[in-house]
């Protein structure tokens, strides 16, 4: 199982390396969005920075993850499932997408800081929040993209299926991020971190239970 996961992640890395332009297009999309948003807002307000940052990360994540299941053909997928355990396929996608999303949100942070200001006061907490955000987004987007891949007009469907599901996570992430920006002081932010981890575990567990029903045709 672990070997399979490792091999699958390597396969995804290799595929993305060979098709560099597809990942590069996501990064370009990210840069364009940030550029537009910065020009449109023209503000150094940390509260606004926080909102803009998470909106950009959310939309870029949805675009980046959409590649994972939606852009694979049905036959390609069936082929993977015959080669490896489907759960291993799902797990590898979770891990790989978490990495990609973490890197993308770091790039978003770098670009936004470059163009505006760096309002982050608690660096450790902020990057932990980024990582937790990447994990949660990766789980929800990956699983809903595997749901959406069964239907037509997949990209719109991915957004309407996953954005409402992400809201509980987003509430907590925004709160933690505000904390790390020094916008609010909350002594019990460890609970928020635990809640995020608990939501992630819950969703991973349920998706493992449900995934076999999705891919069998």
């Amino acid at each position, binding site marked *: 199982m672990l070997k399979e996961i490792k091999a699958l992640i390597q396969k995804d890395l290799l595929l993305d390396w060979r098709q560099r332009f597809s990942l590069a297009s996501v990064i370009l999309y990210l840069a364009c969005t940030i550029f537009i948003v910065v020009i449109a807002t023209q503000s150094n307000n940390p509260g606004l920075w926080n909102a803009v940052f998470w909106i950009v990360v959310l939309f870029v994540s949805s675009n980046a993850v959409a590649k994972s299941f939606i852009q694979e053909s049905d036959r390609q997928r069936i082929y993977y499932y015959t080669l490896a355990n489907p759960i291993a396929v799902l797990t590898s996608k979770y891990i790989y997408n978490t990495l990609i999303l973490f890197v993308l949100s770091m790039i978003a942070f770098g670009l936004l800081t470059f163009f505006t200001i760096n309002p982050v006061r608690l660096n450790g907490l902020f990057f932990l929040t980024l990582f937790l955000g990447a994990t949660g987004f990766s789980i*929800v987007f990956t*699983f*809903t993209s595997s*749901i*959406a891949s*069964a*239907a*037509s*007009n997949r990209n719109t*469907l991915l957004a*309407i*299926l996953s*954005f*409402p*599901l992400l*809201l*509980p996570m987003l*509430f*907590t992430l925004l*709160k933690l991020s505000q904390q790390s920006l020094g916008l609010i002081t909350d002594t019990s932010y460890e*609970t*928020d971190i635990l*809640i995020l981890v*608990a*939501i992630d575990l*819950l*969703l991973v567990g*349920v*998706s493992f239970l*449900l995934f076999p*029903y*999705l891919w069998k*045709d």
Partner: protein
Amino acid sequence: MIDGWYWKFIGVGLIIYSMIVGMLVPLKPSIELVAPSAAKTGQQINLEVTGYNTNYSGSASIRAWLKDEEGNAVLSKNVTVINAQNLVANFDIPGFLPSSDRVVPFTLILDHPVDGAMVSPDAVFITQDSISKVEGQTLWQKDIINDLTLNTAFTFPSMSLIRETIRNTFYHVPLWFAMVIIFGAAVYWSIKYLRNPQSYQYDNRAVGFTSVGILFGILGTVTGALWARFVWGSYWSWDIKQIVTAVALLIYMAYFILRNAIEDDDRKGRVAAVYNIFAFVALIPLIFVVPRMMDSLHPGNGGNPGLGANDLDNSMRMIFYPAIIGWIIIGLWLANVRYRLLDIKYNLMNK
């Protein structure tokens, strides 16, 4: 699922009972307004008390006290009744307060031989110029509030600001309870369908329950918004529970869009069932965890949500619980009609 028709009568009966009794039972007599709200030590003050649902003129022996947090109290010299809703309580405020603070809030307590005791918390703020806690404690007495009358009539609690709108508890809150249970039932049938993909009826049941859940969610939001218009001042206040309901509705509307986006019937049912279960699990933190983390304008919130002792007293429970059961039964019935219709459609299409 449930045979026979008797349960439908039970549901309708409970709803009618909750509507009639919930509307007709009066609120408990209480104090609406106390003026003036500030006084100084050594003064003689006339507190003008406006009551709600009271019958002050019906009794000659009304007593009034001012009391602080520790139970130090002073009895009013005399109480003059003006009419059923208004009276004037005359107090001699002693020269010192039993506290070392400059300004102390005092609670007004009225005892009416028929209406029972009424309390207006922090009704008067008394300012003292010279502070002496020891002398204050000799002037104010403990344990002089006695022989309070208990109002045994069947009434609902009368809370400031909320007042008559407390009756919304019987319509708005049960709809929300019923909605969660009905979405739960949809998950149950989704799981059943995943286990037996051949039985299209299970899929139809999940669809039926989900659509009724959406209906109840909309009704719950509307009844809540109407109530909020009067109590919070606007229909929508971005309260965390309002956001949660809106998100739940978005998620389940997406369920129907997903269904319509898949052409193959087998695949549609299976994928929709998977999404239904996944969505419910993602909703659980939203319904049960997030509202506890954030401040809400909802009664009983700002620390402990749910049904606190202040939100519900025994008289309200006697209508509230039947109303919950009633709405759940109505929901089952609606879903039942809906999925039977879907079954018939399916059979006609596949003949």
